């Protein structure tokens, strides 16, 4: 039930390697797809000649933009809010790696051979990669509608900025950068598609089955009911699979295979040009009183969105409210820009936008503390937001526990640190802390269907995606409590849009909250039906009955209890079902950023002790304590693993990860040059803390301890050796360079 650490439902399969991941999917008569990609960052396509590719033995279909014009695809363009991205490029390519043509063949080898037979004539155009250069008049415009390459400008206006800064005793402005990086799910993007007349079935490794269905229906101009999206378990998503991505290509290609299914599995190199974490340039300016109270804050964010808008029209405004931090700031202005450049499209990355913004505002927080001569933890605590406070969006906060998160990590770190000192003079130790606040989706909806059979088994039909985070296990625990049966009576089915009801998406750490809410409401409905059916059997009014522990009884007469199975059997029912729904509604004004940005806030903190090798610049994390606010913990073991996993994941962007781009070409598009954390990088001691509250509302915890990692480490480095690193990742080279500059004075 809720609160117990049961193993993941598929833990044995995971150990045995028998989880049916999409990457392993095979279908009868299945064809293999390959993608011809642009070698140029920006070019006109003068011609695409595919006839030689068609003649390669084993090739079944070739798809290029010309096919769209011949009616295979009614429209060529798709996108979440802005339909600016072609399924394959037609007259222009905008980044190295952009799809230009597709092959379906009997074997991968034949598909690869056919790729070499396609001749594309390009005329190279000037390209731009930097967000500030993209705004200059001399820069090429990627899309004609946006001559300055800025396609979204989100604004937050709360109070009089000039007056706020005028009241300050101290004004500090700093700029922080975060590079483009990879979500790096172990399983790459995978999709398979099959057409039967005007019905499309897609097997997709996606976090968003229903949005993918809607987008495909729109693209092919068929009713959504004609599209079936089936989602096998994912080998990780981390936001990279959060939106429609490779599915349109596969579905378009499958239109030309006479009903045979086609499957596309991206290589790791293709992963690097399919979706990235936004690079960010963040300038943050704060006005402070001597006593450590804020008078004003101004934040300017330039998000490098790459060549197409993708999720940025939603993420840039979300990142705006995630850029201020959990502090009492009476006056706040934020400008957030989404900028096109000739790089692969960017989208959500675990802790979406908060991973970049927390890096900025929490590094900056320590600078303010040092300039004011106040302990960094104390400064945070004295200005931290509490329930009942007003945030810069105008919303009144409820159930927020940022201070508890901070206290928990500070205490947790103290417990880990022994009194021992570094082994040598050239090794310097320091401690750092950071806290984060992140909104979830303001408006979203989760639905589910529960079916109980006459043996008492309950099947939960849910479109929540299992991607290793343990969502299906948590949902089973919630369902067990909601219906009043033991967890081994619960079976989870889904996602399959022909079977499982609507859900907005498995992202933004929303499932534990939203889908749990839907299951709780469905469970309540099922119990109501069970009580009504038991009423004549127990000769009591249904309202006087209680359903729990697998049976219904009247509390006034404790002896008699009729089991659920018996209720169904005596009523001659094979099964009963119930539907559940949980929805939230909100939103902010695009001109002022005022409104309801989230139904509740995600909260997390981290503290660490690190050691800097002053001769090499290498940073070693000795101890790390991480806390997230869970409201009510469903499964303590899985929740702790989420906290720990986030910290280890966060070490990558903090210390190692950066996509290196040369003339538009990603030159470290493999996992030997692009480093992600290994077991050897994990801190010696790690503590995971889960914070619950009296309100007992279940909160998501999928991202909360990641964003604090980088600033906590940077703050610890400052504490150890007095240098402030302002660009991620914090490589040994950067630390050493900063130390040399400091010693040169």
């Amino acid at each position, binding site marked *: 039930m809720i609160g117990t650490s049961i193993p993941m439902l598929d833990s044995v399969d995971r150990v045995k390697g028998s989880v049916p991941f999409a990457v392993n999917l095979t279908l009868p008569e299945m064809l293999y797809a390959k993608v011809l990609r642009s*070698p*140029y960052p920006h070019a006109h396509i003068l011609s695409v000649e595919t006839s030689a590719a068609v003649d390669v033995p084993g090739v079944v279909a070739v798809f290029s933009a010309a096919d769209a014009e011949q009616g295979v695809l009614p429209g060529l363009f798709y996108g979440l809010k802005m339909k600016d991205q072609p399924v394959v490029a037609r007259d222009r390519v905008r980044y190295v790696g952009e799809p230009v043509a597709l092959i379906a063949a009997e074997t991968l080898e034949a598909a690869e051979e056919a790729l070499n037979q396609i001749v594309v004539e390009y005329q190279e155009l000037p390209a731009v990669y930097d967000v500030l250069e993209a705004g200059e008049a001399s820069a090429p415009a990627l899309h004609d509608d946006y001559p300055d390459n800025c396609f979204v400008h989100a604004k937050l206006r709360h109070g009089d900025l000039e007056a706020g800064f005028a009241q300050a005793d101290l004004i500090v402005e700093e700029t922080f950068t975060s590079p483009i990086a990879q979500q790096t799910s172990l399983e790459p993007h995978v999709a398979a598609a099959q057409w039967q007349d005007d019905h499309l079935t897609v097997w997709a490794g996606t976090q968003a089955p229903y949005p993918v269905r809607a987008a495909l229906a729109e693209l092919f101009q068929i009713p959504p009911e004609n599209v079936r999206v089936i989602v096998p378990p994912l080998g990780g998503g981390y936001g990279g699979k959060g939106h429609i991505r490779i599915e349109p290509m596969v579905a378009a290609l499958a239109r030309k295979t006479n009903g045979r299914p086609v499957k596309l599995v991206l290589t790791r*190199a293709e992963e690097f040009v399919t979706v990235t974490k936004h690079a960010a340039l963040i300038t943050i300016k704060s006005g402070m009183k001597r006593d450590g109270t804020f008078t004003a804050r101004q934040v300017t964010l330039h998000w490098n969105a790459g060549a197409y808008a993708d999720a940025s029209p939603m993420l840039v405004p979300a990142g705006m409210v995630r850029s201020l931090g959990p502090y009492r700031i009476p006056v706040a202005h934020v400008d957030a820009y989404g900028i096109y450049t000739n790089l692969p499209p960017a989208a959500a990355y675990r802790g979406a936008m908060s991973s970049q913004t927390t890096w900025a505002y929490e590094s900056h927080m320590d600078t303010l503390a040092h300039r004011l001569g106040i302990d960094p933890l104390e400064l945070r605590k004295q200005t931290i937001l509490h329930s009942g406070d007003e945030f810069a969006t105008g919303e009144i906060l409820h159930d927020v526990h940022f201070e508890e998160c901070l206290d928990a990590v500070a205490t947790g770190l103290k417990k880990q640190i022994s009194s021992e000192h570094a082994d040598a003079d050239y090794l310097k130790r320091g401690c750092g802390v950071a806290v984060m606040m992140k909104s979830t989706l303001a408006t979203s909806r989760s639905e589910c269907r529960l079916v109980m059979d006459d043996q008492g088994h309950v099947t939960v039909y849910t479109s929540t995606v299992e991607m290793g985070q343990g969502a299906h296990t948590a949902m089973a625990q919630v369902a067990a409590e909601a219906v009043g049966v033991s967890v081994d009576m619960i079976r989870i089915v889904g996602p399959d849009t022909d079977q499982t009801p609507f859900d907005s998406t498995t992202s933004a750490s929303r499932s534990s909250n939203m889908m749990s809410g839907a299951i709780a409401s469905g469970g309540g409905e099922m119990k109501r039906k069970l009580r009504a059916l038991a009423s004549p059997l127990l000769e009591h009014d249904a309202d006087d009955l209680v359903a729990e522990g697998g049976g219904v009884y009247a509390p006034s007469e404790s002896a008699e209890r009729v089991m659920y199975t018996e209720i169904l059997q005596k009523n001659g029912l094979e099964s009963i079902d119930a539907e559940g729904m949980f929805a939230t509604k909100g939103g902010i004004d695009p001109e002022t950023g005022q409104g309801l940005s989230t139904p509740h806030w995600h909260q997390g903190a981290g503290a660490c002790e690190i050691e800097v090798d002053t001769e090499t610049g290498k940073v070693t994390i000795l101890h790390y304590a991480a806390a997230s606010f869970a409201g009510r913990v469903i499964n303590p073991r899985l929740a702790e693993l989420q906290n720990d996993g986030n910290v280890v994941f966060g070490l990558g962007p903090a210390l190692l990860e950066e996509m290196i781009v040369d*003339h*538009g*070409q*990603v*030159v470290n598009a493999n996992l030997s*040059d692009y480093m992600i954390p290994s077991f050897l990088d994990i801190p010696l001691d790690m503590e995971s803390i889960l914070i619950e509250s009296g309100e007992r509302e279940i909160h998501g915890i999928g991202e909360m301890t990641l964003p604090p990692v980088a600033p906590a480490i940077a703050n610890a480095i400052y504490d150890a050796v007095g240098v402030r690193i302002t660009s991620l990742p914090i490589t040994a080279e950067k630390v050493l360079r900063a130390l040399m500059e400091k010693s040169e004075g």
Partner: protein
Amino acid sequence: MLLKDSFTINAPLDAVWAFLSDVPQVAACVPGASGIQQIGEEVYQGKFEVRVGPIGTSFDGKVTFTERIEREKLVALIEGQDKNSATIVGATFTGMLVSLEGKTRLDYEVDVALRGRLAQFGVAVVKATAKKLTGQFAKCLEAKLTQSV
């Protein structure tokens, strides 16, 4: 990717300049180069074979000399394409000669735009290959010049 290096040849500047101005001679010292033909006043085409990491490539390419300052500087645009590895290369080579008491130092800079499958192997592999080739070229150059002296 910017490749920047220099090497010193045990020969006087005049001899080095004369050698560098003779494209077929230079080509004979470039490891893997073959079939060099002049197709324009300052334009040459040919084939260039090189192994980069595990991949064997064969580039069909063109070199255009865009600037020559007698005994001092040489600038060339290099364009090439290898169909098998679906790789396109575009590079600007700038070479500067410095006289050092009877020896000559060649400082060079190559701004390379490498695109396609080969580029995915990472800068380290490409740089290591470039370094190796330059070393071989320098050795060949010196050997030829010292023979002729």
